[in-house]
Structure formats: C-alpha cells, structure tokens
C-alpha cells in the first residue's frame, strides 16, 4: 500500500500538477512538496506528490552501482 510511482510533471496549476507516465495522465496534489517545476519527476501516492526525485542522487547511485559491477 505504500506504493508510490515516479511520474513526470507536464503542467502545474496552483497546487495541482498534471503528471504523466507511459502516456497516461493524472492529477496530483502538490501540497506536500516544495519547488516542483514542469519536467521534474515526482513520486505519486494516493493522489499526492510525496517527494520530488533528486536527479543528482539518482545518477550518483547508478554510477556507483556500475562501478561496483565493473569491479567483479
């Protein structure tokens, strides 16, 4: 039940965003997050954005994992 899905922000109106994943659009309430812009990815849970995904951290984790894999 704690499932939350990363979706891309394509439009923002006041405290609501239109988010998209695989061609499916949904509305998401933005009250629980800060500084969201069009193009950001936000985690959607029960109709609310619960976090803005951190691109830099996401890339850091991936490059760390790739490095580790090369060391095998």
């Amino acid at each position: 039940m704690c499932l939350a899905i990363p979706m891309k922000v394509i439009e923002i109106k006041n405290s609501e965003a239109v988010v998209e994943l695989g061609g499916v659009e949904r509305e998401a309430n933005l009250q629980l997050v800060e500084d969201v812009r069009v193009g950001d990815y936000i985690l959607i849970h029960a109709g609310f954005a619960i976090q803005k995904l951190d691109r830099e951290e996401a890339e850091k984790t991936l490059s760390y994992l790739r490095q580790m894999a090369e060391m095998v």
Partner: protein
Amino acid sequence: MKYVDEYSDAEIVQKLLAKIHSTSQSHPKRIVLMEVCGTHTMAIFRSGLRRLLPSNIRLLSGPGCPVCVTPNHYLDKAIAYARKDDVIITTFGDMLRVPGSSSSLEKEKSCGGDVVVVYSPLEALKIAQENTGKKIVFLAIGFETTAPTVAATIKIAQEKNIQNFFAFSGHKLVPPAMQALVGYKDLHIDGFICPGHVSTIIGSKPYEFISEQYNIPCVVTGFEPLDIVQAIFMLTQQIVNSEAPKVQIQYRRSVKEEGNLRALDLMREIFEVEESNWRGLGNIPESGLKIKEGFSAYDAEANVPVQVEETRENEACICGAILRGVNTPLDCPLFGRICTPESPVGPCMVSSEGTCAAYFKYGDYGK
C-alpha cells in the same frame, strides 16, 4: 532518467548478486534479513530475487502491509458504518475483501451497503461534496506514507468548509512495530530492509535507535531490483565485516535523513500519537495516529455513532504469526487449499502485498 528502468539492469543485478555470494560465503552463520514493507515483499517476489540469493541469506517478510495488520475490530467498525443508511464508505480497494468477524465490506456492498473504492482521499472528499445529504466515512489506513495525504485532505475539507467528510483513522507507524519485533525472543533478525516510502516521509533518523540500542543494521531501500540487491549487499557488508551497526540510505533519490518536513508538519498538525492494536503484534505503545481534538469535526469515531459486533478471530488463520515473522504461509494448514486469493480466509491472502498472497502468486516456496 525515468527513475525506474535504470534500476532494473539485469547485468548489474547479476554482478551484485555474485558479490553478495562471495561476501556472505565467509560468514559462519545464516544471515536473516527482514523486509519490513509489504511493497518490498511484492517487489522481491516479482523479481525472483529470493531464488538468486545464497542459501545462507534468508529474507523474512515483516508486518508492513497496512491491510494485513489492521485488526478485526477496525474492520467490524467499518462494516458497522457501512450498514448505516446515511453513510457512504470510501476505501482503498485492498480493504474490500478482508474478512472481519462475520462479514466483509464486499459482502455489505452486495447487500446494498454504500461502499466506494477510491484511489485517493481527495476522491472521497469529492464524493462528500457531491452527496451533501450523506456522511462520507473514509477508511484511513496506511503507514507514514499515507497519513500525510489524509492530513492534507482534512485541511482541505476545513478550508472548503466540507462538513460531511469523516476519516476513520487506523493509521499506524512503522518504527514502533520494528521495536516490538526486535523484542521477540523467538525471532532473530540480523538486518532490516527499511521501507523506502515510509522513510521518504519520516527520514532515516527514526531507525537509529534500532542500530544503536539493538545492534541491528538498517538500510532504507528503494523498490526496483537494483535497489533491493544493493541494500542486501550493504547489509551483508555491515554484518560480515562486523562493522558498528548503522542506518544507511540506499534510496537517496527519494529519502533525505530528515524526511519530508512539510508532510511531517502537516501530519503532526492533524494527528497525535497513541497506542494502537496490530494484528499479530497486539497493542504497541505510540504506534498509531488519532485525529487531534481540534480536528474532531472530521473524526468518524467522534461524529458517527455505531454499534459494533463483538470481535471474533478466525482461529485457524496464522496471519498474526506470519506478520510477526515467526511462521511462513507454508506453516498454515489452510494455505493454498482452503485459503486462496479467490476465497481468502485471512488478510494476508487478501491484500496484494500480503505474504500469503505473494507466496501463492509466485509459488516461491524455496526459502
């Protein structure tokens, strides 16, 4: 970057698994890791990871399925609400088929009870606006991930002066349940795979007491295959190298040490902590959320009186012991024979995140 596909690269998963095999080989004892969260349980089964881990690493499923840990008494009360003519029950879909003492919401619905499945508490609020002659009771279950969304909905109800929306809070908190688990003498856990989305809200600090006081390492983990394999690798490293146990964040793209402060503030504005009853784990101090007095106008229990039948438990179902980590579904004589997803006897088979449902669906009985 789509934040999903990148984290399921099969080649890197294989290589990390090889690392886990070589790291754990030297360890003299079996390593027991618990994934606390039901969404992790599902992700682990779906990816087939259990079969790919070395034989001396065992993954244990914990009490992190909100539907499963909701006790019969809550269900019975929800069913009593559903029987009232002036009430519309709004609920997440997973709750519908869970058997209470003598009925379920699904049965009530088929007998004419007004029960509507919603994806968001905001939908329940909309139903309230469209049905001003009815009382809309929203079954507010879920952990720290969900509670802020309900808190925000109550605030919106207040701002819009919506007077017929009521939340029935069955919200529960994860760290106190973990504390209860580590206190069980019949359960041994070497490391915790901590829930990624609960932690997105609460951060990583609330787990520190587990590492510090109970010497159990914790890794806050995402939900894609690479996330989970990396977390198992991090935990194995801590355990095999006998490092001082600590809390680490694997899921950095979403989890900050301090959590989501905005969501936490809102949650604390609307709810206060209280003792709560968990299926299988009993009463745990400070593990539940109740609506604060200032917001009691939105509290179903304060506004919609009902007679609730006496709670009875199904003696044959060992869901409770499974949630406690001391049994697996294979220990249940009803599993797969009498109890199946089509005709579930207990909540652990109903919820898509329940351990019995995962065992049944993926037939992954190996470990």
